[in-house]
């Protein structure tokens, strides 16, 4: 043991406590809804696919649980050709808007 270690306390318990508090707050909220992410992914893909041709393999969903907020990140790769086609369709189907 050197002199430095006398001053450097190994306080890992507060870290454990904080991690548990954040984790359990989410786990309690999602009890019985363990498939939430899978359901979200299916429904979001379905909505997008209604308008744009997308590759189901190119959709990534990430959840970062934090305190006070969590983030849900949805990354959908849309081929440029499909996006342009979808935009054209929308232009045709929508009435012209007077500016």
């Amino acid at each position, binding site marked *: 043991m050197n002199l430095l270690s006398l001053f450097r306390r190994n306080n890992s*318990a507060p870290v*454990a*406590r904080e991690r*548990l508090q954040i984790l359990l707050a989410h786990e309690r909220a999602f009890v019985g809804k363990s498939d939430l992410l899978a359901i979200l992914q299916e429904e979001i893909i379905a909505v997008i696919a209604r308008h744009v041709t997308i590759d189901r393999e190119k959709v990534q969903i990430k959840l970062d649980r934090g305190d006070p907020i969590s983030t849900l990140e949805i990354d959908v790769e849309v081929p440029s050709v499909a996006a342009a086609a979808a935009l054209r369709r929308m232009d045709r189907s929508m009435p012209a808007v007077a500016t």
Partner: protein
Amino acid sequence: MATVLVVTSGKGGVGKTTSTAALGAALAQSGQNVVVVDFDVGLRNLDLVMGAERRVVFDLINVVQGDAKLPQALIRDKRIDTLSLLPASQTRDKDALTAEGVERVISELREKFDWVICDSPAGIERGAVLAMRHADAAVVVTNPEVSSVRDSDRIIGLLDSKTAKAERGERIDKHLLLTRYDPVRAGRGEMLNTDDVLEILSIPLLGIIPESEDVLRSSNIGTPVTMGNPTSAAARAYFEAARRLKGETLVVTVPAERRSLMGRLFGRRAVA
């Protein structure tokens, strides 16, 4: 009126079986009629911890399936005659337990004993759910360690939803038993302390069992710690927990080891 108590935790290896044996023995030592029931079908160990492994003839599965009568399967402790054991089967699997069979056995045990203490298997599967199914109260055994606390939180959720009492809209009494606690390390901030765990799990504290050499020694020789070494710190903590189960109000403390001078000098306990 009998009390059915489940000793549960979610996580394995935190001290369910040790605590079942020690609390059961402590209650029996105070004159109560107690049966400890092993629900860990296929991985029974309560018989070994109780020192009754060579006396098992019939088991819980035999009684559930009607192959044996309850009195044939009950093993009375040789040291305390108010303490009995209903062992689990070592050869069958959990699917042999039926909900109706378990209900019938538990209600038969209620007639005979003051306390029916069910030692739950680890996990949240069928065996664990059946062990808690007919409980009036639960002892949630937790180590001051992140994975154990998380699993205890999950088990508390199951106690509030999957037990017969919860389904009837009643509250099941839940008690926290903090085991393998090291007050020195907790004091130094190296281990979750009692307040941390209580704040996270928010169920009342039944007792704090300090990490103790006597617990391993007791299971080595097949004697619950409250019988084999009743003055040890762990045994005193279990005795106090048993008194709280009976409704007494006692301030929760962490009993300390009583060390001899030689023990202090050489850093280990003198052999009693």
